[in-house]
């Protein structure tokens, strides 16, 4: 019996040729910035500047500026840290895991998603560094550096130290992976440019020659880096979850945390990719490269990871009941019906119910609804971390120590600072770097463009 597959949906619409790809993507790097972009950058830099006041106040006065108390020693800071790291995960998943699975639809979005990863990890790393209180001494606490105490080394049994190694490795490997793929595209811009732009992009293009030998090595390097980045990305959020899971706080001390955190990270990361890409494709007129098909596929990933997260929430409850441990049972009942019930139900609504709407094809192929739901998911994922962290801490072992957490203006301001930083970096990237991987798109023009399918 002969089996013939139906023709796949084209990944690139509009009958693009190789020259069109170069032109469409290089155009926004070479052209004058649009008013819309300038406005967006202005707003981001404004948020950065406003947030900097809170950051400066925190560094000047100390961590007392935040709403932490002796019961709740971790709140917005670590919530924001986990939230930003989680967002970063989608970039690596798209560029590395989908490369290993040979999913060609990754090619239109991997560049921007990886940029998002790098900027999100920078924002995430801000929080533990600021929380050190005296970050200028932080290198001695976080790295095994010889010191005058003996040397008294860092504690390699601590998951917080594993985090230092995980996050810094993740950041640097992602940066290298991203930059290696940018080199051929910088060469394209270099070869079109004159004057100062040529000097700058010649520097960035690293003397790329496009020789068959270089491409052959390049492909090997990409594949191995993808192979290394895949377990790396899983390890990073696993280790982030160890920050909680290895402690003996009811609500944290669970073995489900690593897979549950990784799924949640991919879930929120894809939502952020959608938020960014829906805006980018509109502003830079890239609808032929980032099609409704791409958006639909990302929404399907959101259904899957969102469902995993939903099952994890229910499993936690079940295990708390089934374990028979009273403290554990109390922690979960208190989460849902205690003073932070609103955060819990915000999380349940945003993360468990809203992604299920994507089962409807009308909803997952609608740009407006996808955009709204992508924001909802990220709000939900922020609440997830807030719920896990604050509700588990606020009922201390002694009822006399029970407390509530109220954020101060400095908590809000430092979070705003990272938003400003993230969007400033992303908008600069979107203007001065090719937002879509040109050479990868060119390599599939023959097989996946509408021009050839006709």
């Amino acid at each position, binding site marked *: 019996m002969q089996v013939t597959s139906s023709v796949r949906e084209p990944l690139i619409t509009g009958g693009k040729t190789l020259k069109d790809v170069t032109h469409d993507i290089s155009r926004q790097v070479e052209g004058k910035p649009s008013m819309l972009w300038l406005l967006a950058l202005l707003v981001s830099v404004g948020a950065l500047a406003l947030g900097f006041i809170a950051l400066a106040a925190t560094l000047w006065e100390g961590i007392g500026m935040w709403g932490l108390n002796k019961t709740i020693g971790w709140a917005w800071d670590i919530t924001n840290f986990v939230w930003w790291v989680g967002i970063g995960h989608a970039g690596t998943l798209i560029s590395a895991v989908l490369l290993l699975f040979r999913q060609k639809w990754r090619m239109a979005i991997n560049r921007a998603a990886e940029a998002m990863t790098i900027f999100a990890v920078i924002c995430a790393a801000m929080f533990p560094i600021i929380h050190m209180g005296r970050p200028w001494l932080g290198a001695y606490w976080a790295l095994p550096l010889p010191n005058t105490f003996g040397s008294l080394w860092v504690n390699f*049994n601590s998951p917080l130290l594993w985090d230092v190694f995980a996050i810094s*490795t993740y950041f640097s490997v992602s940066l290298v992976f991203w930059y290696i793929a940018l080199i051929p595209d910088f060469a394209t811009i270099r070869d079109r440019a004159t004057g100062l732009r040529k000097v700058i992009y010649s520097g960035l293009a690293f003397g790329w020659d496009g020789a068959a030998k270089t491409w052959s090595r390049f492909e090997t390097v990409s594949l191995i880096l993808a192979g290394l980045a895949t377990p790396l990305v899983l*390890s990073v959020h696993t280790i982030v979850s160890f920050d909680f899971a290895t402690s003996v706080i009811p609500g944290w001390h669970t073995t489900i945390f690593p897979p549950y955190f990784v799924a949640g990270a991919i879930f929120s990361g894809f939502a952020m990719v959608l938020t960014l890409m829906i805006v980018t494709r509109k502003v830079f007129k890239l609808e032929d490269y980032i099609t409704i098909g791409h958006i639909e596929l990302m929404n399907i990933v959101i259904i899957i990871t969102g469902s995993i997260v939903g099952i994890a929430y229910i499993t936690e409850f079940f295990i708390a009941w089934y374990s028979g441990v009273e403290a554990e049972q109390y922690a979960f009942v208190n989460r849902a019906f205690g003073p932070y019930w609103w955060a819990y139900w915000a999380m349940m609504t945003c993360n468990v119910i809203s992604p299920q709407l994507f089962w409807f094809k009308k909803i997952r192929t609608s740009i407006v609804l996808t955009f709204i739901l992508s924001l909802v998911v990220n709000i939900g994922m922020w609440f997830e971390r807030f719920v896990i962290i604050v509700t588990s801490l606020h009922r201390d072992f002694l009822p006399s120590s029970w407390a509530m957490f109220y954020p101060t203006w400095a908590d809000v301001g430092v979070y705003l600072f990272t938003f400003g930083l993230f969007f400033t970096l992303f908008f600069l990237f979107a203007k001065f770097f090719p937002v879509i991987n040109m050479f990868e798109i060119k390599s599939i023009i023959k097989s996946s463009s509408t021009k050839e399918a006709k």
Partner: protein
Amino acid sequence: MERDKNFILGVFDDEDVLLNAVTQVRNSGVKIQEVYSPFPVHGLDEVLGYKRSRLPIAAFLFGMLGTTLALTMQFYMMKFDWPMIIGGKDHAAFPAFIPVTFELTVLLAAFGMVGVFMVSSNLKPWGQVRIFDLRITDDKHVMAIDLATNAGIGEEKLAEVLKLSGATEVNKKSFE
């Protein structure tokens, strides 16, 4: 005639035509200097007769170096240099050392391999490169043939071979 100075270039529009052309040109006894493309063409390194890259070996060796360094560092610091009892566990708490060991393995493997790639492909900031044709980073594939290496064949004959194999243009390029 001096080598590596004067080239005849075949310009190709289509990667499948190019793959056939490489085989055809090589079969007619012509030595190809190099083929330049705007994107990786699968199978091009095979028809050109290039050996498989040894970069995975470099990655493996650097990875092993990372594993060794990480384990040595942690055992030295935690067990020998300043032993401390943490959580009632053995000083040499091997399971606790796995995450850092894994991260350093990945870090060194990635950076080592990329470093070797940069050196072997001569990639560096503001690296100088001979550009045979500006369109090779846009939409054309260019096959460069050294006139000196193929002196026995003659320029007209080389141009003919290129045209026959499907080149849309045949140009000449000389470097100082």
